């Protein structure tokens, strides 16, 4: 599904990613962990094509296509989704209009006719239930006045609407209390199919108690320095990152 080879990327001329290699197969859940500043958010931003980042070297193939040559909106249409760490507020634009534009743009890309208003509202109702999103929130402006937890739930709601093939959850657990965390994680699990994959970026084991990873990577100083099974996350939770630094001879 996703194949990253020797990926290097800069922001403001500073190299953050220094040769990432990562392969994600259909149906897999990968967790990427690592200390602050190791490049986790940069990796997710580069994959979805944020204009502030510059790829200097390497390649990314997504479902057989050269991902890096696609515009951000086409990456989305191809089935790549990012649950933002800090979802932005868009005053004046209702969630309904926003999602309707998003869903219909994707349908257009796939050569499907736009949904009618009633089809769309029905779809919205169904998907809202997955993350127990209040109908009042759906009528408000995008993320405006949402609490931290509501914003994250809203991200997963959008994921449900767009049915991506690969979802990147960038610190989706940050700022969530334990109930919100459970709802969000259960939402992600309900959306999981044998064909769809997930990259979960997190600092903590607690999210991985709900969303079970198949493979855990440690990202450090712009490189993946360790890859193992789910037990690695537990070990990190217990011991922190210092032992990894030691292993690397620092």
């Amino acid at each position, binding site marked *: 599904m996703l194949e990253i080879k020797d990926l290097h990327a800069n922001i403001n001329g500073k190299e953050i990613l220094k040769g990432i290699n990562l392969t994600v197969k259909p149906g897999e859940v990968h967790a990427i962990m690592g200390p602050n500043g190791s490049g986790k958010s940069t990796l997710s931003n580069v994959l979805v094509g944020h204009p*502030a980042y510059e790829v200097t070297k390497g390649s990314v193939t997504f479902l057989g296509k050269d991902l890096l040559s696609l515009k951000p*909106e086409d990456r*989305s249409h191809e089935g790549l989704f990012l649950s933002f760490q800090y979802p*932005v507020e868009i005053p004046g*634009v209702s969630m*309904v209009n926003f999602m309707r534009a998003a869903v219909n*743009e994707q349908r257009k890309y796939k050569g499907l006719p736009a949904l009618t208003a009633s089809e769309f*509202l029905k779809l919205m109702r169904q998907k809202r239930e997955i993350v127990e999103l209040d109908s009042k929130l759906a009528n408000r402006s995008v993320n405006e006045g949402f609490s931290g937890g509501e914003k994250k739930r809203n991200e997963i709601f959008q994921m449900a609407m767009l049915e991506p093939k690969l979802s990147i959850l960038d610190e989706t657990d940050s700022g969530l209390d334990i109930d919100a965390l459970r709802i969000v994680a259960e939402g992600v699990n309900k959306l999981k199919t044998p064909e769809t994959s997930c990259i979960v970026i997190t600092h903590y084991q607690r999210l991985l108690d709900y969303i079970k990873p198949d493979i855990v990577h440690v990202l450090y100083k712009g490189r993946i320095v360790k890859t193992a099974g789910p037990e690695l996350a537990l070990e990190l939770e217990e011991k922190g990152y210092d032992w990894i630094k030691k292993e690397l001879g620092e």
Partner: protein
Amino acid sequence: MQEEPNKYVKELTQEKYKYGFTTDVHTDIIEKGLNEDVVRLISEKKGEPEWLLEFRLKAYRYWLTMEMPTWAHLNIPEIDYQAISYYADPTKKKEGPKSMEEVDPELLKTFNKLGIPLEEQMALSGMAVDAVMDSVSVKTTFKETLMEKGIIFCSMSEAVREHPDLVKKYLGSVVGYRDNFFAALNSAVFSDGSFVYIPKGVRCPMELSTYFRINAANTGQFERTLIVADDDSYVSYLEGCTAPMRDENQLHAAIVEIVVMDRAEVKYSTVQNWYPGDAEGKGGVYNFVTKRGICKGNDSKLSWTQVETGSAITWKYPSCILAGDNSTAEFYSVAVTNNYQQADTGTKMIHLGKNTRSTIVSKGISAGKSQNSYRGLVRVSERADNARNYSQCDSLLLGSKCGAHTFPYMDIHNETAVVEHEATTSKISEDQLFYCNQRGINTEDAIGLIVNGYAKEVINKLPMEFAVEAQKLLSVSLEGSVG
């Protein structure tokens, strides 16, 4: 659920200014230049009575003593008033056309292209239209239907002929020829425009609408609109404007006067889309317009709604004199400037009567290298007890080379007045656009969504059909403003 604005944007993203065509009709244009003879010639061509010629000449002589105003936040190149032709008649007949058969087919095609079919389909859209090309009213639809209710809706020239008493009574009563430089110029050379009279107790059953179009080169358009709503009447009026793309600038200096009597209500909506000039700032219409209404009667109401997307320069302050007790006035405005456009627009609310209320909602959107100013005056006179005003001025910036300015003036002479002013400035951020991109919405569409969301409060005030058109216009006007 609201009609989502975005589906229109896609089909329009390739378009530039789609009204930029010219029509090849024989046009009777008088020589360029302005002097007393030209004023007399215009009056003569229109077969006007003596009193109107006198009105024009007084205005002309007064105009000669005036200078162009310079207080606006605008950079206006010098205008050579002798290089403009002050009268162009595309109908080439001495009198206006009497029926559809008499109208030049090319003209009808033009208005069809603009989406204003003058034929019988108008019956289906349920709207009466007066179409003004260059200086002359081409055709007014639905006149007979309206006449049955006693409503007069015709061109100004016709009103002068058919209803001279009404015209004489109200012309210049709200905007006198001494009002300002452009008002004096218009009063001297005004060509045509619309006249509306709603009799006592009549609710106008359809939207009345005028479409203005400048076609001929090197001409100015100086139309004059007069609306009188008698006691207990109601009318909703819409004005739309377009012009061909031309490299040279065209001058448009109009006057709109509205008189609202006891318990009457007038809604006046404008979708202004004169040619704004090209991306380098070449060409475009200079739009210097004086619009004012008076809530003359008690419990009367006047509402201005404007969507301003066109013109190279806009200088326009639709205003209201709240003379009657308990009268209400509203001003809802969206002004978009892109590329090198400049707009200095706003309103004046003059509270004279007791318990008068006014609301101002202004939404400015600036992009490219444009300058967008809100200028508003709220005046409460000594005897206007319990006057209330609420003003809200928001500015939205796209990019970092444009400017947004707010000039609110308040002049309060009665201590029972309650006057509120709120202002915000915001910017469409890269993060907002990227968030939309990630959800599969391209940048142009994202801007369309955000801008339409921002302007919603004003757009919602427009009659339904025009709200849709206005949404499209907002998106098209901002094309290429980022990237």
